[in-house]
C-alpha cells in the first residue's frame, strides 16, 4: 500500500515535471522542472527495489548534469531565451511547422504502439509480479557483476571517460602565443 502510494507519487512527479519542461517558456525553469522529473525517476527506481540505481540517478543527474546544464544555459544568455513565438495551439514555444508536428506525431504513435505491445507481453510473462516489498542488497551483486561478467565493458567505458577528461583538459588549456 505504502510502496504503491510512493510509486504513484514518483510517477506523477516524473510525468508532471516532464510536461512542465515542455510547456515552460523560461529555459531556466525548464531545467529546474527537469530536476524534479529526474528525482521522480529516482523515486521510481527506489520503489522497484533498485536502491543503488536510484541513488546513482540522483548523484549523476542532480549533482552533475543539471548543474552543468544550468551553467551552460547561464553562459549562453539565460533568460533572454524566453521565446515569444507561438506554436499551432498557442501553448508552447514554437519549434516547427505543421510538417514537423505531423512527423513527430506519427513517430510518437509508432513508439507508443510498440511499447504497448512490449508491456503487454511482459505482463504475460510475470502475471503476479508485485512491487518489490523486500529490498535485498543490490550493491554487492552490482559489484560482482561489474568486475566479473562485464569487466570489459566497464574498463572500456572508463578508458573512454578518461579520454574525454584528457581531451577536455587539452581544449581548455591556455595556448602559448
Amino acid at each position, binding site marked *: 500500500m505504502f510502496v504503491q502510494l510512493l510509486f504513484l507519487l514518483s510517477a506523477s512527479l516524473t510525468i508532471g515535471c516532464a510536461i512542465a519542461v515542455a510547456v515552460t517558456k523560461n529555459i531556466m525553469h525548464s531545467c529546474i522542472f527537469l530536476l524534479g522529473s529526474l528525482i521522480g525517476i529516482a523515486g521510481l527506481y527506489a520503489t522497484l527495489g533498485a536502491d543503488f540505481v536510484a*541513488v546513482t540517478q540522483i548523484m549523476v543527474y542532480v549533482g552533475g548534469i543539471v548543474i552543468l546544464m544550468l551553467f551552460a544555459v547561464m553562459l549562453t544568455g539565460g533568460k533572454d531565451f524566453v521565446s515569444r513565438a507561438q506554436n499551432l495551439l498557442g501553448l508552447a514555444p514554437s519549434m516547427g511547422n505543421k510538417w514537423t508536428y505531423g512527423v513527430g506525431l506519427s513517430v510518437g504513435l509508432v513508439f507508443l504502439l510498440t511499447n504497448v505491445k512490449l508491456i503487454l507481453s511482459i505482463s504475460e510473462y510475470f502475471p503476479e509480479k508485485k512491487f518489490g516489498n523486500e529490498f535485498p542488497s543490490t550493491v554487492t551483486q552490482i559489484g560482482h557483476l561489474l568486475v566479473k561478467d562485464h569487466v570489459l565493458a566497464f574498463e572500456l567505458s572508463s578508458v573512454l571517460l578518461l579520454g574525454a577528461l584528457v581531451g577536455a583538459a587539452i581544449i581548455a588549456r591556455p595556448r602559448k602565443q
Partner: protein
Amino acid sequence: MNQTLVSYLSQYEFFDVLLSLFGKNEGLLAFTIYLVFAGIIVGLCATIGGLGTYAERKISADIQQRIGPNRVGPYGILQFLADGVKMITKEDIMPFTADKFLFYLAPMLALIGVFSTLAVLPWSNGFIMADLNVGIFYLIAISSLVGVSVFLGGYASNSKWSMLGGLRGASQIISYEIPVTISILSITLLAGGMSFGTILGQQEGAPVHWFLFHNPFAFIAFFVYFVGALAETNRAPFDLPEAESELVSGYHTEYTGMRFGFFALAEYIEVFVVCGVGSALFLGGGNLPFSTTFDIIPLQLVQVVIFMTKTLLLYYVVIWVRWTFPRLRVDQLMSICWKYLTPIAIFNLVGNAVWVVVFHGKSIAELLSGGH
C-alpha cells in the same frame, strides 16, 4: 537487508503493546513512529543549527577576546531564539527584477537537501531512521541539492554580488565533492559496505579500532575529508561564495527575513551533518569504548551522547578554524582542490586498496597484537 528504526524497535516488548494500541495495523504504526522520530530529529537539528550561530559568536568572541552575546537569557544563550523571532517578523522583500519562482524555490531546496541527509545519520547503532545499504552514497547524492540551491539563489536574485557568489559556490561545491567522495570511498573499501551499520560495526570497542587509526592512508583520508567538507559547506577559510569583504554576502545578499534564515540554518545543519559523518566514518561514531552484546534503550541513549560529543568537538574545530585562518583566493581554492587534495585522495584510495590486499584488511592494532 535494510535495517530501519522500526525493525530495531520491534525487538522490544513495548512494540507489541503499541501494535495492539494501533489495532494490529503495522503499516500505520511504522508510519507513526517514522513521523514522530522525524519530527524529533528535525526539531533537534534545527535547535542545533540555531545554537550553532550562538556557539559561533561566543567562540569567535573568545578567540578575539570579546564577551560576545550576553543579554538574552543566561550567558546570552537565548540569542538564537531572539534572532529567529526577528527573522520571522521581518518584511519579506523580493527584488523587482528577480526570477520569482526560482527565488522562492532556492532556500527550500537548501533545506530539503540538508534535512534529507538526516534520514541516514547514525545517532547510535539502533537509533538510525533508515540504515540503507547505500547509506553514505545516498547522503553524498542528496546533499548535492544544496549546490543547486546555492546556484539558483545566486541566479534568481538578479544581482551581481549574488551571481558571483552563486557561481563560485556551485563550482566550489562540485570541485570539492571529488576529494570528499574519494576519501569516503576508501573507508567503504575498508568496511566492505556502504551502510552506516556496517561501517560502525567494524569500529566497535577501543579507539584503536577506529578507522582513523586503521592504517596510515585512512589517517590521511580523514584530514582530506575534513578539509574538503569545510569547503563543501562554504566554511572559512573556503567561504568565498559569501565573502563579505568582496561580495557583500554572496548568493544570499538579496534574501531577507526567514528566507535568509533558511539558508543560514541549512548551512549550520550541514556543518553538523558533515561533522557527524566524519565522526561516524573515522572516529567510531556512537560506539561504546568496550564491546558488549547487552542492548537496552538507555545504552542506546549513552551512544547518542557519545556520538554527539564527538560531532560537537568536530563542530568546535570547524568554528575554531574559521576564526583563526585568513580566507583563500579563488585560484588558490581551485589549485588546493585539484592539485593537492584530489591526488592525495586518489593516492589514499590506492594505498587503502593495497593495504586490504596485503594485510587482509587488518588494522595496525590487530597486526601489532599478532591477531590472526
